[in-house]
């Protein structure tokens, strides 16, 4: 019975033990994931490169004065401009030079013809005073007082001749108050100005003031701050320098390599002239320089013996104060510029001089105002239409894979980059990309061998216009060893080679509205074993 009792108690224990597996708790938190492969795909980056922005930057990034103009048909014209050489008349022509702090002008006689300072070949007929401060000095060494007046008969204001009366006590020196000459007009036909005085003793006797010291006249004058607002007269033949400048053609100065042809390049010279007499521009030097320093002389049928007459405002036609413009365009129809540009010149150097009244016409009356200038600007004008073959660019970018650098690559089998381009430009691009460490040492490259085309050019019509967008997909697979190296790269060295549509054989148009989108995605195949 005792045995049966223990058996009765033990039996349930045996049964419960049998169902233990059904009740045993399994900790899912401690479960390990079984070996398998999974693949995750996600986007990395995208960017859209606008042709207008690109051209602005590539062609316009270093030099000031360069301008890209978007034309109404969305073509773009690139202007490289030299400095505007602006010559005020006063830089070339100096009239009536009364320097400050100069000694007084002695008046040795009661009538004195003072020679005016004027440029060679110029004869003044009229001058309008803008500013001027005149001081008359009278030294009376006599023992009795005198009286009289000082005048400039050729100078008048509102019809009244300039005149200053004076009275001087015996044995006395006086300085007149400062006499302002603004608004007066001078008339002369011999480049001289007459100064005159009349002095009388108390008994009415006209006298010439005696010299207080030998050789030192008793009358003098000081003229300061003297400027003219208008000069009129005759300008004879005279040559003078206008400008010498250099224009950098930085489309050919980038680190880009390869062959590029620009369709219809132009050089434009614009002269704005408010000098009121004939001026002839003489091209002293006009040449392009190649990368290797070779000089390419720009020759054109536009010039007559390297000269061209600038338009000018005519005194006879009442054009005082006006500005006249002269535009000279040198293009493929009248010059050898197209041939020169095939050699990818990097610089234009030009020097222009001026000749007044080159025809030596004695009948011409000319003029200058205080605002008269002559300005010359030179532009190189390139419509962005052309062709390129393997036109290369190199660029180094910093690279940061961020948290991808910390991924446990032991769980990664391989990665696959997907590079997608959607190209609306007529330019295709081949690419090679070198991953570099912080010292710039290459540790791997995107493609194993040569650069690969990653962007096909959009199709173009017969006029070189794109007719749509072209999508190109490029897949780059890396095993984990390569990816492990690449993700630690600190910078990338980018080599890009551009070729226009149809293998760069026909000119295409680059439009401001064209763009190219570049996108990058990544697939990561993981392995867990």
């Amino acid at each position: 019975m005792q045995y049966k009792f223990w058996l009765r108690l033990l039996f349930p224990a045996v049964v419960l033990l049998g169902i233990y597996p059904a009740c045993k708790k399994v900790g899912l938190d401690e479960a390990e994931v079984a070996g398998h492969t999974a693949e995750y795909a996600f986007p990395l980056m995208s960017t859209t490169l606008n042709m207008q922005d690109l051209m602005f930057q590539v062609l316009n990034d270093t030099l000031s004065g360069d301008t890209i103009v978007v034309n109404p048909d969305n073509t773009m014209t690139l202007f490289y401009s030299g400095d505007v050489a602006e010559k005020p008349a006063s830089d070339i022509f100096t009239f009536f030079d009364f320097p400050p702090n100069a000694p007084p002008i002695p008046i040795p006689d009661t009538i004195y013809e003072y020679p005016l300072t004027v440029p060679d070949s110029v004869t003044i007929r009229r001058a309008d005073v803008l500013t001027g401060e005149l001081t008359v000095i009278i030294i009376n060494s006599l023992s009795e007082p005198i009286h009289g007046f000082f005048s400039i008969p050729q100078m008048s204001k509102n019809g009244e001749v300039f005149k200053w009366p004076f009275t001087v006590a015996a044995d006395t020196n006086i300085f007149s108050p400062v006499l302002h000459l603004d608004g007066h007009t001078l008339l002369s036909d011999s480049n001289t100005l007459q100064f005159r005085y009349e002095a009388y003793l108390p008994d009415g006797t006209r006298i010439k003031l005696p010299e207080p010291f030998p050789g030192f006249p008793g009358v003098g004058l000081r003229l300061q701050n003297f400027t003219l607002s208008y000069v009129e007269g005759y300008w004879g033949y005279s040559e003078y320098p206008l400008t010498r400048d250099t224009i950098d053609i930085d489309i050919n100065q980038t680190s880009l390599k390869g062959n590029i042809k620009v369709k219809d390049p132009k050089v434009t010279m614009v002269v704005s002239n408010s000098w009121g007499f004939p001026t002839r521009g003489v091209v002293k030097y006009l040449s392009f320089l190649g990368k290797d320093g070779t000089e390419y002389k720009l020759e054109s049928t536009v010039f007559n013996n390297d000269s061209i007459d600038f338009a000018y405002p005519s005194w006879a036609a009442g054009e005082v104060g006006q500005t006249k413009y002269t535009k000279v365009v040198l293009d493929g129809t009248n010059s050898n510029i197209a041939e020169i540009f095939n050699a990818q010149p990097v610089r234009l150097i030009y020097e222009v001089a001026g000749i007044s009244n080159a025809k030596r016409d004695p009948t011409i009356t000319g003029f200058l105002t205080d605002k008269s200038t002559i300005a010359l600007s030179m532009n190189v004008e390139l419509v962005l239409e052309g062709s390129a073959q393997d036109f290369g660019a190199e660029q180094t970018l910093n690279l940061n894979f961020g948290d991808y650098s910390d991924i446990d690559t032991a769980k990664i089998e391989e990665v696959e980059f997907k590079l997608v381009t959607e190209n609306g430009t007529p330019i295709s691009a081949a690419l090679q990309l070198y991953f570099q460490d912080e010292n710039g040492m290459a540790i791997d490259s995107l493609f194993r061998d040569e650069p690969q085309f990653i962007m096909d050019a959009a199709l173009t019509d017969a006029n070189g216009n794109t007719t749509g967008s072209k999508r190109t997909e490029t897949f780059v697979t890396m095993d984990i060893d390569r990816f492990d190296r690449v993700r630690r790269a600190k910078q990338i060295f980018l080599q890009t080679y551009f070729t226009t549509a149809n293998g760069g054989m026909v000119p295409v148009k680059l439009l401001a509205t064209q763009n190219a989108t570049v996108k990058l995605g990544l697939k990561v195949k993981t392995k867990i074993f």
Partner: protein
Amino acid sequence: MACSTGLQAQQELMLHQQSQLWHASATNPAFFPADKKFFIGLPSFGLDAAHSGDVTYNDLLRKDGDRTILDLGKAIDKLEPQNEVFYDQRFELLSIGARLPGDIYLQAGFATRLNATVDYPKSLAELFWYGNAPYIGQTLNAGFSANTFDWHELSFGLAHRFGKVLTFGGRAKFLSGISMLVTDENHNAVSVYTDPDIYQLTLNSDYGFHSSRTISAIDTSGLGFDLVRNQLKNGFSSNNGWAFDLGAQLKVGQKLTLDVSVLDLGGSISWKKNTNYFRSQGTFEYNGVEIPGSDIINGTTDSLDFTAALDSLNDVLQFEKSAAEFTTKLPTRIYLGATFQLTERWAVGAVLHHQKSERRSATSVGVNAQWAPVKWISLGAMYSVNDQSAANLGFSLILKPGPVQLFVLSDNALNALTPYGSSAVNFRFGGAVVF
């Protein structure tokens, strides 16, 4: 075929037919062992779990020495487009009962219960296991719904036998919620689309869930998507409610016994403490780092930096948290049973069970036979049919050495013995001392 092919949890049909067991009163408050006056229920554990289809534990997990390996490869092939997991666990720690003069029975008990239902699409498992790359160009449904909560249950019951044939019983249960996670039925859509272009991700989200204690925050900082579990424990009476059981047993003649019960009637838990609502709504597109072309061209950007990429990828779901009270309802269960005592050693019976909740409704019926070869051993078998399977074979073993009652039983015996190879498992075991 012992395994069900669809999801159908067996609701303790076999336990209900063992009315002589003290623990059978869990299925009908009118059940009390005959001719006993004092009852002490020892710990009893019951589990009722199932996965739709024929996905088994072994399809998901396997042992490799001391390691437990999670392997979804096999399971995914067996999944249906939409799948359901059901898990119902009951742990009765202690219960007591007494027969008072006048055929009045009192009872009290303490239990911890868990009820969980999870519906999930096959594509969610595929996305988790295989990644999104194999499904480029497809919209994957990643939304799942869950209704899971556990609670303490403190019960007090009273029964009265009228004459010798009819017993009425009732039980009030104070429910104290432990934790809860219930997805919003009206907002449970999440889809992921991977664009064939460069794998841009589009995530459409209209998803919300209520949580108490389970999740207190969703941390998307760094590279993780961490569910921050609430460190605050809900006190016994912080989130609470009531449920009621009613039952009756009628002896018809000497051999036939009929019974009916309604359990968890009006049962609900009102979650007020540590309770939040999380909501993610909108379309989130991730296109990678978008670098303005002008920045590259102008040199404003002189580097390619992918750091921000993963950070922003992390934040796509953007759950917003707000405090919100919530009420969970317990499934109401109904038992209808009959037992006929053929001989002193043999009895046969039938039982019908119906369960109704907000999300699922299920009915099962079974017929059973009970054999007591000796006085202290009782063996039983049951054949039952439910909504998904017409072939479930149950088994019971009851030992009653002296005042001790020990039992182990299952509505699906083969599954209970090989739970790792079954898509559904149901068993209950425990003990009691009755005097």
